[in-house]
């Protein structure tokens, strides 16, 4: 019985924590908002230099050849420090899609450049103000050329390549495009959390390369986000823990009626609820990490369980952290809002809470838990 990370993995996590703390990741997040930029290029370069973009990339493609568990511990720290970098888009989604479904030729071309930072990727699926589904994708591919419009594409501004979910004559395809192509138009969109820019990507006869089986793209997409859900959960757990720590520290130091507010049960119980939510989310994320790393058939259920618990935990913790801070929590000056906004970004990227609850129950129906 060992539902825990190894000493090496814990060491990696500790190094990641020290690095992001030293680099003042949270302060960088705030600076981006103040400057209306869309990410921190300097921090991203340093992360590339540490080799984190190549964690799962095999050694023959210049990567570190490590497993998903190493990604999980990095994800938790990125979440804790609100790192304003395109890690989830490029690593959990784009890189994993290429590793999983790319041809050998594509891997040879792309993977080493993901390690070196020359390529940054993202995944584009949403097209309108509603959840994407296999039946509402309109962006279309004809003779390998894609025409259509994607919105709310995270990190597309720094990305050099995207995987586009598009309609083909046989169903849905996943297709890779190069952002250098002149047929593309990429526009920054105003968002609620500017620390991770979202973009509109307009395609007009944009050349593309098929990734994975033709016409089966929706299933492949689902499979990619099932994997990514585990990593998102770890980011959400990290963010939840950071907000609980902030709230606890504030509740010990802030006095009202002659006492620390943390001595009042109204505050205590709120913080205890946050601890309970985090513990459930963390334990479910550990189990999902096991399911992911061991390629268990339980992954769809385990990933959705982790995702739902972690989304609920981060939403609860980030909003109650503001509440604990009182009026200060509502100011731009305090960091509470940075976590509140990131919790929303992480809960909507790769699909909303209600959609993941639905995925969980339909996976249970398929796996027939009784």
């Amino acid at each position, binding site marked *: *019985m*060992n*539902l*825990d*990370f190894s000493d090496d993995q814990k060491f990696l996590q500790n190094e990641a924590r020290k690095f992001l703390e030293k680099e003042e990741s949270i302060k960088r997040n705030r600076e981006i908002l103040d400057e209306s930029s869309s990410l921190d290029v300097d921090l991203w370069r340093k992360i590339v230099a540490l080799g984190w973009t190549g964690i799962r990339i095999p050694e023959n493609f210049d990567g570190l050849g490590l497993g998903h*568990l190493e990604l999980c511990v990095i994800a938790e720290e990125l979440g804790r420090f609100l790192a304003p970098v395109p890690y989830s888009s490029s690593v959990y989604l784009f890189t994993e899609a290429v590793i999983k479904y790319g041809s050998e030729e594509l891997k040879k071309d792309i993977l080493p450049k993901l390690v070196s930072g020359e390529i940054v990727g993202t995944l584009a699926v949403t097209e309108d103000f509603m959840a994407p589904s296999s039946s509402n994708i309109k962006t279309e591919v004809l003779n390998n050329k894609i025409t259509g419009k994607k919105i709310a594409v995270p990190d597309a501004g720094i990305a050099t390549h995207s995987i586009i979910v598009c309609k083909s004559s046989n169903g849905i395809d996943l297709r890779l495009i190069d952002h250098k192509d002149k047929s593309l138009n990429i526009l920054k969109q105003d968002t609620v959390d500017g620390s991770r820019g979202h973009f509109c990507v307009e395609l007009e006869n944009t050349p593309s390369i098929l990734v994975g089986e033709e016409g089966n793209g929706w299933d492949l997409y689902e499979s990619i986000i099932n994997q990514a859900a585990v990593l998102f959960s770890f980011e959400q757990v990290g963010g939840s823990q950071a907000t*609980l720590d902030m709230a*606890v520290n504030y*509740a*010990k130091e802030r006095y009202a009626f002659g*006492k*620390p507010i*943390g*001595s*009042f*049960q109204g*505050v*205590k*119980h709120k*913080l*205890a*609820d946050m*601890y*309970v939510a985090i*513990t*459930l*989310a963390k*334990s*479910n994320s*550990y*189990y999902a*990490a*096991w399911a992911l*790393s*061991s390629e268990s058939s339980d992954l769809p259920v385990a990933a*959705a*369980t982790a995702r*739902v*618990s972690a989304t*609920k935990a981060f939403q609860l913790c980030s909003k109650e952290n503001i509440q604990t801070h009182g009026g200060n929590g509502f100011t731009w000056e305090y960091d509470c809002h940075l976590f509140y906004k990131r919790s929303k970004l992480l809960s909507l990227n790769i699909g909303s809470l*209600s959609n*993941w*609850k*639905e995925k*969980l*129950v339909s996976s*249970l*129906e398929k796996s027939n*838990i*009784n």
Partner: protein
Amino acid sequence: MDFKDNQEQANFRKKCREWLEKNAKPKTGVEKNEFANINYLQAAKDWQKKKYDAGWAMLHWPKEYGGIAASAIERIIWSEEESKFDVPRGIFEIGLGMCGPVMMEYASENQKARYLPPMAEGKEIWCQLFSEPSAGSDVAGLRSKAVQDGDNWIINGQKVWTSGAHFSDYGILVVRHDANLEKHKGMTFFFIDMKSPGIEVKPIKQITGGSSFNEVYFNDVVVPDSQRLGEIGDGWKVAITTLMNERLAVGDANGADVEDAFRWAKGQDDLGEPLINNKSVRSSIADWYCEANGLKNTKLRTMSALSKGETPGPEASITKIVSANKLQDIGNFGMDSLDMSGMLKTDDPEIQSFQNAWLGAPGLRIAGGTDEILKNIIAERVLGLPQDARADKGLPYKDIPTGNA
């Protein structure tokens, strides 16, 4: 990460299973909860004796008291395997889980040799006499008195919520020996013979209709000083040892869980559609599944720590809050799904399990620490928040304000 036993653990699990398969029947599905039933009591005693004779009764206890000094992980393995079989558990949890550890720590060698083996064997049942009508969550506010009289103490007062007092042979008791001292300093701890003259046990009828708790009255009950556990005035310290064990003993709320709700939703009609197609039901099932598995996986993390010889973190402290509330919600869901007919008592074991959950869960949210007290404990002991200001701090017990109750 992996879920495999190591060789030693796998061998131990195999031994457990082999013995259980020979001596008990595997669970079939919906098992009945018959705690208050007298035949159940005899069946529980018989099962405990069978385990004791074969060495399975109190695995972690030292050999001289009927155990095999097993490790924490072996204890969990046994408990996992035993829980897969339809056996009468529950009667001895308070005695073995709370009274046993206190006796182990504070009783004399002669007393341990006299009382622990029959406790492990199930021959003598023990109860815990702490709560009082005006001392529940604030159990240190208790009023029952002990007055020293030569080599004896004379006990007067009343205890309440005493599980199993009506069939217990012995009990552990905390009482006030000096009301002039501060409230936590004026208490002393004893174990007593429940058949002593002057003890009167009255069952309490619960909202379920059953009676597993009692009121216990003490009228000039004589307890020899040799049955004092800890020094005079150490009552609270000894009580805390017991309460720490109580939290481990209470743990998971048994009863209808997400699997039952899911199975029910697939079979139940909802205005002409299967209930499982109802969006709000799907959302609730997702929530309960996350809670149930969050607890299960938390337990696995605790076991992982024990398995490596590490001390587990405080994660397990969330178990009762989460499981008792989930039980109440699931009971409510099942009854709600029956519309007006949900009020009717029936022989249908699934419907019964929802009604039992709904009726029983309010008790579980209170017993062994209310939700509110458990949240205080998480906030103070895990998160390190300061204690609430107390109106009784530093006051002699007799000067502490009390309400009418």
